[in-house]
């Protein structure tokens, strides 16, 4: 069941990049996100699945639609780089090779009994600071871009 779901997700991902018309591409992207949410629910990460559906299939798709309404629905045909396929395949092969070389050591973790994990205190105390820094810089970027967009618009008027 999961494999079927993942196959459809992958096909929708390819379709959202290959379909030339904007709205069908957007629909396949939204469907992909919805199915990813269902997949997370099927592997016992129900809250993550709900987050995925609400944030991606809801929020980000609406945000992208908003972007399309600003820019217009027609996109000119772009020249694609043939080496990009080789690049993507190479990364896929490298990731798979690294994973299959180390998968035996990963399976040892399964045998260990689950310990009481203090999530933020033990695992993420350093990472939270890093994530907060990245998040703050992205927020700063958003504010700066909005400001720049507004000043450009004012100049045009």
């Amino acid at each position: 069941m999961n494999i079927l779901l993942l196959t459809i997700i992958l096909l929708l991902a390819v379709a959202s990049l290959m379909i030339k018309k904007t709205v069908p591409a957007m629909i396949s992207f939204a469907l992909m996100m919805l199915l990813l949410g269902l997949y997370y629910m099927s592997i016992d990460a129900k809250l993550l699945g709900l987050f995925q559906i609400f944030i991606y299939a809801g929020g980000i798709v609406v945000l992208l639609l908003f972007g399309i309404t600003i820019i217009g629905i027609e996109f000119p045909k772009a020249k694609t780089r043939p080496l990009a396929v080789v690049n993507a395949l190479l990364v896929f092969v490298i990731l798979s090779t690294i994973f299959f070389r180390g998968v035996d050591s990963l399976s040892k973790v399964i045998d260990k009994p689950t310990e009481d994990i203090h999530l933020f205190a033990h695992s993420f105390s350093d990472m939270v600071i890093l994530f907060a820094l990245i998040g703050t810089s992205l927020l700063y970027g958003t504010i700066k871009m909005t400001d720049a967009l507004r000043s450009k618009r004012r100049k045009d008027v």
Partner: protein
Amino acid sequence: MFEIEMLFAFALFGVGLYGVTSGRDFLRILFSLEMLLNAVIMMLAITAHYLGMTQNITMAYMVIVLATLEAGVGILIFALAHKVSKMVIPDDYTQEVI
């Protein structure tokens, strides 16, 4: 099962990387960036389920938050670039946006 699902996550990462590097329009680039981040979230969720690394789910929530912010910044950058140069393909931009 674990290995096959991880392979699907790697494939999604590959598709996202293809979209970013192939030089398409801004919408496809944003789709691809979201796919890259979703591949990472997928890997975290799969390892949490099959290897019992439940702390990875917390990391996945953080990645989702950053992906949302990244989409917001991306849309604004392209809206601004379109406002300045009336183009939607990054390769065609000839002047500074800001």
